């Protein structure tokens, strides 16, 4: 990462530099900036990587799976179980969506761990759009499934009538903050992790050959932790999507 800094043009150790959006191919359609940026490049890389893992690895359709096919099947069963356990069999209709969401975030996080790469999910707008898709989708599913009865989600059954107005306000606020918490959780984790790695990396360079070992050791540990976080955040995002779906489908409270 120090090398990355050097190539960045001597701006010192700016931990935010790695999140910079660079327009590789400036484009403008109808007044809308749709430039192909480094972020877009890594989104395309993520799509290709996920497709290779799930489509190319299955080309053999082997009865006894090889390594790559095992990974594809494991991830399939992992997400399928997650959806089935959290949203029931009715939720399996949305399995392709949850699978796509999980794989996209997981690969974006993991590819972001490669030095000199770009972490797509470290941008609030990306995570927010994903969370918004989940939020709007779940709300639409809820209304299609239960009609106006979906609004009862905001009125907990068995609560005293006196508390109802307060409870409804709280429930509505908690429902509306879902996309915010969902997106900020992922974005903040990625941002904080990568920034911390960068800061520690700069310590290594600053302290040099004699003093740099301690932050280097810490960096190794943090890198391991960041891989865990990369997986965990993809998992959390997917599982919360399943839980929201379950709310919309079954309205258990």
């Amino acid at each position: 990462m120090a090398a990355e800094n050097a190539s960045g043009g001597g701006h010192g150790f700016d931990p935010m530099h790695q999140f910079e959006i660079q327009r590789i191919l400036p484009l403008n359609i109808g007044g809308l900036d749709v430039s192909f940026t480094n972020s877009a490049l890594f989104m395309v890389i993520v799509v290709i990587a996920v497709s290779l893992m799930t489509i190319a690895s299955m080309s053999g359709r082997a009865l006894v799976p090889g390594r790559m096919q095992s990974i594809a099947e494991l991830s399939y069963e992992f997400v399928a179980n997650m959806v089935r356990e959290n949203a029931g069999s009715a939720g399996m209709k949305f399995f392709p969506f949850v699978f796509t969401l999980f794989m996209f975030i997981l690969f974006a996080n993991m590819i972001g761990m490669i030095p000199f790469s770009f972490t797509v999910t470290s941008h609030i707008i990306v995570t927010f759009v994903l969370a918004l898709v989940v939020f709007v989708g779940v709300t639409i599913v809820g209304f299609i499934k239960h009609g106006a009865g979906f609004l009862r989600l905001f009125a907990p059954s068995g609560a005293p009538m006196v508390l109802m107005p307060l409870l409804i306000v709280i429930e509505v606020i908690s429902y509306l903050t879902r996309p915010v918490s969902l997106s900020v959780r992922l974005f903040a984790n990625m941002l904080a992790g990568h920034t911390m790695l960068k800061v520690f990396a700069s310590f290594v360079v600053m302290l040099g050959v004699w003093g740099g070992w301690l932050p280097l050791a810490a960096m190794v540990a943090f890198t391991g932790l960041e891989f865990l976080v990369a997986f965990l955040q993809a998992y959390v995002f997917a599982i919360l999507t399943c839980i929201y779906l379950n709310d919309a489908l079954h309205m258990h409270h």
Partner: protein
Amino acid sequence: MVSDSGQSFGAGQISGAEQLAGSGPTFILAASTNSHGDEDGSVSQNLIQSEDTEISEALGVDDHGSGGMPQFDFTTYSPQIVWLVICFVVLYVLMARIALPRIGTVIEHRRDRIANDLDAAARLKEETDEVIAAYEAELAEARGRAHQIASETRDKLETELGKERMETEAALAKKTEAAEARIAETKAKALAEVDQAAADAAGDIVTALTGLTATKAEIDQAIVDARSGDRA
């Protein structure tokens, strides 16, 4: 750290807005020149990029060094959203149409195959059990028959042996009887001879002692008396 980023956030916002204002027209220009030809396009792009850096330098805004969070540079939002939507939709279609059905069928196929194999194994085991049961039944039957034959043979032998023994015993008994009879006869004869000898001796003794001649009847009577007296 927090307050620092908060201050720089404002700076970043302003720089973003300025950049948008500065670069907006040039981008439109790029799009229009692109349509004329590749060579022209690349040339104009280079021109625009250099123009961009010139603008940012002129404004005194350093894209990287300002410390402002790139995440809150709103000019980058529209390309990110557009490409996210494109990539996500493409990935969703690939997953939903190709990848997941393929993985699903492979897994299902394997599950069916395993179930079939297990069924076949269970069927074969059942057949094996049947064969084993038949074999054991036959074995038991054979063993029973062997036992029966053995006991029959033993019985037959025993009866034959018994008959033979009885015959032998009967013959032996007859022989013993004949021998005993002969012994008794001999004994009686011997005793009679002893009596005769005793009577003669007694007559002689009487004659010698008394000078009288005892009749044979008297001597016999005396012998009978003496023998009965002995027994008493």
